[in-house]
């Protein structure tokens, strides 16, 4: 199958406009007749559901949490980027586009990335109108701060709770449309599988997580907005319920999975402290505006951090990357931390952390200013660790954070299954091999609010001629039975190991071999190990409780079964890509200084994998760069 990204014609800055000028329209009376299913209620899902409802479509929105307000967009802390140039520091759409493309190590499409930058400024207008209390100057204008990988100040924020405020705005709009009876919400419902009728997405099977009942839902199009899948590592900054099941099920039904192994490891999370730990809490990247990262120059230095004099500290980011310093992009900062920790300079009880120090900022501007900027983050740090970070440095460590990979989508955000769209983190799209800080909220929002509502009509206009599928179609019956069989099978293993135990085992393999640093023998072994784990899972997992009722263990087990398969694909992808780019660091391909070495002649393409139970099939979408010449990505 030839992948067609459907990039519109014209100059880079005209493409989106050209697309809109030519896309089809549907009259309001007809929109009412069209049903769209949205799975997920985060920024992209709620944004899409609310906006599509405003346009007149009939929307059903599904999410596993008890309320749409819980979706994990809520946890994004630092901010959202926009090329407003309010700081008069030379920012522009072009510069933001270039920063994002370079940040992703030239592994994303020019047209998509440009559109992301182009739509960023209207998005800030949009959220301001919706009542997001962005930080303001005394004179009333909006404030910006810096984020990694960028030399201008283009990040908008609402304290350290930007994701929460944007999500609540989206949640509010969603509820506004609920009140108008244009959106029906299905809380505590998890999508179990996708239903295709004649090769076209026509609905889903969902499980009511309270009653355990399997339900069929038919629609004219299905939108997946299910977020990232970094819980495949078990320990991550994600919410415990975040999962890859919806996109994995879609993948198994024919949607190609792009760049599955491109995973961002965030440099500033709290370190793991014990085996029983379930979560690595993120400390916002914004802290690196004022915090300085260091380790002692001396190995196993027994002194307390404050007792180590300046001359005996190694500010390794400032040393290695003088022009970006502590604001080096995430992949680079994480790898640099790993390098120091592996070399034996790690700090903390388990020697698995580095210091993030605010002493200089507090000395320069006073504690009050630091408190104004990051107060809630310091409070959170204190709550979790019991340590006052105004008085001594924070301990931080890299953690799995964001999936740049996801379902392959074209310029219209449609997957390779007609009628199935993927928005937000669950698609592969604009971030290439590494996402810049504060571009995640941005991408989720523009996908949901601005892009999908402008592209879905192109598809739906054509489907107006055909009847809406109904749940009586035999395809629904077949898929529902398959879901039921899978549930029965998992409940009837009656083995000896818990789901969590298997998840820990999977996480260890993935973290060891398919995270910050990868190599051929390691990945080959990992694939074998995960396959063995899969066999073991299906013969030895123990899940108690019933299928027809609330059963949190069953939910976890079903998600893990998919993570195990996804893990194999991630390792396959990492193995196949014999180059280093962004977050994908193959040890065999590095410069003498230990930086990532791209191989543009052989790997300037998006890997899109087709599901095959025997061996995943690779399809290539060549990346052509018409406007930017890919260069060595340097932050020195």
């Amino acid at each position, binding site marked *: 199958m030839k992948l067609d990204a459907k990039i519109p014609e014209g100059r880079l800055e005209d493409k989106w406009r050209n697309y809109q000028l030519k896309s089809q329209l549907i009259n309001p009376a007809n929109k009412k007749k069209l049903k769209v299913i949205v799975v997920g209620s985060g920024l992209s899902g709620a944004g899409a559901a609310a906006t599509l409802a405003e346009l007149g479509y009939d929307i059903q929105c599904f999410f596993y949490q008890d309320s749409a307000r819980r979706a994990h967009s809520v946890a994004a802390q630092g901010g959202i980027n926009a090329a407003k140039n309010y700081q008069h520091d030379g920012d522009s759409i072009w510069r933001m586009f270039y920063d994002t493309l370079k940040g992703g190590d030239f592994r994303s499409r020019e047209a998509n990335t440009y559109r992301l930058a182009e739509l960023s400024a209207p998005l800030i207008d949009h959220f301001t109108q919706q009542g997001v209390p962005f930080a303001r100057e005394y004179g*009333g204008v909006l404030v910006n701060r810096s984020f990694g990988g960028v030399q201008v100040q283009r990040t908008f924020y609402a304290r350290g709770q930007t994701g929460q405020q944007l999500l609540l705005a989206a949640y509010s709009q969603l509820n506004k449309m609920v009140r108008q009876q244009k959106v029906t919400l299905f809380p505590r419902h998890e999508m179990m599988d996708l239903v295709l009728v004649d090769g076209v997405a026509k609905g889903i099977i969902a499980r009511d997580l309270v009653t355990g009942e399997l339900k069929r839902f038919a629609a004219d199009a299905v939108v997946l907005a299910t977020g990232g899948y970094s819980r495949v590592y078990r320990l991550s900054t994600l919410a415990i319920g975040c999962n890859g099941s919806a996109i994995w099920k879609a993948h198994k039904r024919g949607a190609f999975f792009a760049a599955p192994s491109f995973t961002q490891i965030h440099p500033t999370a709290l370190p793991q402290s014990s085996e029983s730990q379930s*979560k690595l809490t993120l400390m916002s990247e914004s802290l690196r505006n004022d915090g300085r990262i260091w380790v002692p120059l001396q190995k196993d230095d027994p002194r307390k951090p404050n007792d180590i004099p300046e001359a005996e500290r190694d500010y390794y980011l400032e040393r290695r990357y003088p022009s970006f310093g502590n604001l080096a992009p995430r992949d680079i900062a994480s790898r640099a931390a790993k390098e120091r920790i592996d070399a034996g300079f790690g700090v903390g009880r388990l020697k698995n952390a580095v210091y993030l120090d605010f002493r200089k900022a507090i000395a320069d501007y006073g504690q009050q200013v630091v408190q104004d900027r990051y107060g809630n983050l310091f409070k959170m740090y204190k709550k979790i660790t019991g340590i006052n970070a105004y008085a001594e440095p924070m301990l931080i460590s890299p953690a799995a954070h964001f999936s740049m990979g996801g379902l392959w989508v074209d310029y219209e955000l449609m997957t390779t299954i007609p009628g199935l769209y993927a928005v937000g983190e669950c698609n592969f799209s604009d971030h290439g091999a590494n996402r810049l800080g504060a571009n995640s909220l941005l991408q989720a929002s523009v996908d949901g609010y601005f892009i999908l509502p402008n592209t879905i009509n192109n598809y739906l206009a054509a489907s107006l001629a055909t009847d809406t599928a109904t749940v009586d179609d035999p395809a629904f019956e077949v898929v529902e039975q398959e879901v039921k069989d899978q549930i029965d099978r998992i409940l009837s293993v009656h083995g000896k190991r818990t789901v969590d135990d298997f998840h820990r085992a999977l996480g260890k393999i993935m973290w060891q071999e398919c995270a910050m640093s990868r190599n051929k023998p390691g990945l080959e072994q990992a694939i074998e190990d995960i396959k063995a784990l899969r066999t073991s899972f299906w013969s030895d997992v*123990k899940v108690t409780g019933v299928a027809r009722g609330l059963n949190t*263990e069953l939910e976890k087990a079903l998600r893990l079964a998919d993570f195990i398969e996804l893990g194999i694909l991630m390792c396959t992808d990492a193995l196949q890509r014999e180059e280093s780019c962004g977050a994908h660091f193959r040890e065999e391909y590095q410069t003498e200084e230990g930086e990532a070495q791209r191989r543009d002649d052989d790997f300037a393409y998006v890997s899109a994998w087709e599901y095959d139970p025997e061996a995943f099939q690779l399809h290539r979408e060549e990346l052509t760069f018409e406007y930017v010449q890919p260069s060595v990505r340097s932050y020195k």
Partner: protein
Amino acid sequence: MQLTFRIWRQEQFQDKGAFKEYLVDHLTEDMSFLEALDHLNETLVLKGERVIAFEYDCREGICGQCGIFINGRAHGPHDHVTTCQLHLRSFQDGDTVTVEPWRAKAFPVVQDLIVDRSAFDRIIAQGGYISAKTGTAPEANAILIGKETADKAMDAAACIGCGACVATCKNGSAALFTSAKINHLNTLPQGKLEADQRVRDMTAQMEEEGFGHCSFTGACEVECPEGISIANIAEMNARYWKARLFA
């Protein structure tokens, strides 16, 4: 570390629940409270029993999904934290810890420690938004908002919707939750046009859901993970009477 958990077990809303005791061993001080429950659940699975149903998601204090009444207090012994941010270092080896769901008329128990908080969503749906469609926004800096105003709106907007305020209130009142959303939006110029309608509709829904009245004990603001002040309730009341009298 060893703890005895006295946990509320209830199959479903219609059933009568009861406390059941579990002696849990091999705990460590740096475990979070929810990780201790995870650990207990793993031992229950191995024994072939149904696990304890409890809710969580982000485990970093922002999603608002985890809400457990611990030793008679919402989210445990500390002020201004969520249950996921509570760690076992706050307990003594050998302690008995009583673990219950939120108890409020408007929050029916779903199972064990899980309650139904959808009443909050229905309150938001009655005006907890600004009626503006996607694509109609003016330039962001065209709306000037002083820092003090933005900060005040943000203080109220920080609510995570966990329901601790309701659970801890002797009247089961949702006044803190509702007032936080009203004041967030009514403080900002963008929310002014709908201010009166918003306060009328949202408070009406609050009553319809069966939440009690506020009698200003201040218990809610102590438990609120975001430290939202009860001054918000006084302000909501003032807005309410203004909306009623001058409508």
